[in-house]
């Protein structure tokens, strides 16, 4: 069992020793159902830290900010960043290592096993609460969640309100860490891609109707991109103008910024955006499903990424984030890669 006090003890120790620059962890937010990222710089602040199934966020995203910030500083503090990672988050770290975006020395990985739990799905809870505001939540033996609202107190088995990705999780503990809490019990669902079956069984037209309905909701707030630890391009294909400009960027280069995707939230452009994003995440997405969690209009973005995860596994026997040394999916090939689709 993960013991929060032990985590705090370690956090205090590494901060006191000056071993890390700061620690990215979780704290309570104004919303009882969701933790907020917190950045602990001083040992006396460690009591803010929490660890429970409301710790949704994939904090690895903040390593990207940190790298950018460090690049701007003249004399950067090069100490590692302490960071809380769950199983899925750790795979994100592996991908960043694989893509040489960070080095192992940049991070002090505080690995946390989700054990047999995971994180909550806020939307599932809202359904259960039918609009009532949760005042307080407690976890009972990591088996049930006890939610108190103004009117009543209800007890829901965690399994019923866990995020889908947690129910389908194949490695609930970090695959890379410097310190580790919890158990390393592997859980492997028999059919890791079962969630896709419903869409896959649809006819082409039904598939189109489904995605058309979902993606036309998109308001292009880019929260999915913004929250994704793999979306760290300096300039995204959807950005309207050049963002990565240096002193020697020519006017011509700026003028030639390609508008692959127009700013209008039209169906064609929304599809363009989501297809490109899915392609960019092929072999890189580690299924933290943050994109889907943050989507304000509930687009099941995970089903796009999960599909390519499945294809990648089945066609190329490739799984993202398990080994920082393996070559990337699209920068490698095997002679026996399937080609039955090629004429």
């Amino acid at each position: 069992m993960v013991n929060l006090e032990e985590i705090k003890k370690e956090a205090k120790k590494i901060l006191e020793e000056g071993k890390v620059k700061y620690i990215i962890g979780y704290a309570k937010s104004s919303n009882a159902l969701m933790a907020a990222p917190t950045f602990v710089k001083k040992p006396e602040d460690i009591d803010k830290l929490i660890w429970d199934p409301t710790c949704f966020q994939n904090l690895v995203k903040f390593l990207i900010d940190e790298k950018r910030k460090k690049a701007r500083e003249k004399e950067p503090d090069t100490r590692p960043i302490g960071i809380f990672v769950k199983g899925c988050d750790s795979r994100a770290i592996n991908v960043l290592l694989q893509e040489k975006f960070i080095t192992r020395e940049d991070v002090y990985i505080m690995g946390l096993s989700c054990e047999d739990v995971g994180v909550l799905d806020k939307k599932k809870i809202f359904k259960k609460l039918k609009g009532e505001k949760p005042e307080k939540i407690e976890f009972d033996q990591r088996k049930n969640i006890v939610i108190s609202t103004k009117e009543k107190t209800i007890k829901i088995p965690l399994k019923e309100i866990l995020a889908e990705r947690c129910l389908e999780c194949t490695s609930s503990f970090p695959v890379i860490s410097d310190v580790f809490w919890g158990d390393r019990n592997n859980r492997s669902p028999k059919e890791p891609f079962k969630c896709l079956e419903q869409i896959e069984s649809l006819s082409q037209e039904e598939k189109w109707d489904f995605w058309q309905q979902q993606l036309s909701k998109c308001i292009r707030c880019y929260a999915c991109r913004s929250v994704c630890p793999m979306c760290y391009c300096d300039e995204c294909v959807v950005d309207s103008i050049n963002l990565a400009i240096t002193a020697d960027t020519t006017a011509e280069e700026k003028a030639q910024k390609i508008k692959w995707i127009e700013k209008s939230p039209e169906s064609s452009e929304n599809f363009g955006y989501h297809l490109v994003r899915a392609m960019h995440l092929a072999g890189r997405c580690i299924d933290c499903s943050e994109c889907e969690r943050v989507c304000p209009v509930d687009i099941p973005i995970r089903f796009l990424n999960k599909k390519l995860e499945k294809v990648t596994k089945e066609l190329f026997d490739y799984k993202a984030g398990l080994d920082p040394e393996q070559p990337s999916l699209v920068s490698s090939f095997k002679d026996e890669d399937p080609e039955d689709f090629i004429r």
Partner: protein
Amino acid sequence: MAEEFEPKIIAFLCKWCSSAGSDLAGVSRMKYPPNVVPITVMCSGSVSPLYIFNAFQKGADGVLVSGCHPGDCHYIQGNFYARRRIALVKELIEYIGLEPQRFKMSWVSAAEGKKYTQIIQEFVQELKPLGPQKKLRREK
């Protein structure tokens, strides 16, 4: 009577094999429908998925990517990378409901003018009953 629907096809042909194969079809005076406009690229490995999505967005009814046969790539391995990338694109666009017939990949060598001709003939035949591709197309 309404005019028969004529699909627009964009074909990304690698310079060394497929474009040369299509040249051979010309030299041999083979005939195929004029629905295809070729864009010659250096290697099938240089065809970014963006090009494919973009062609559909701009109103292509079908897209073909064609390269050298495995092992024959002028650039040794470019077509192997293409094969992986294109497999992903193919799976993805089928998954979102685009008709799978609209996107093809082929290996056409410099000697396969006949094969290129057949591919285009078949492609046009397959696309005609589908009608215009409106799913990913931008409104004009």
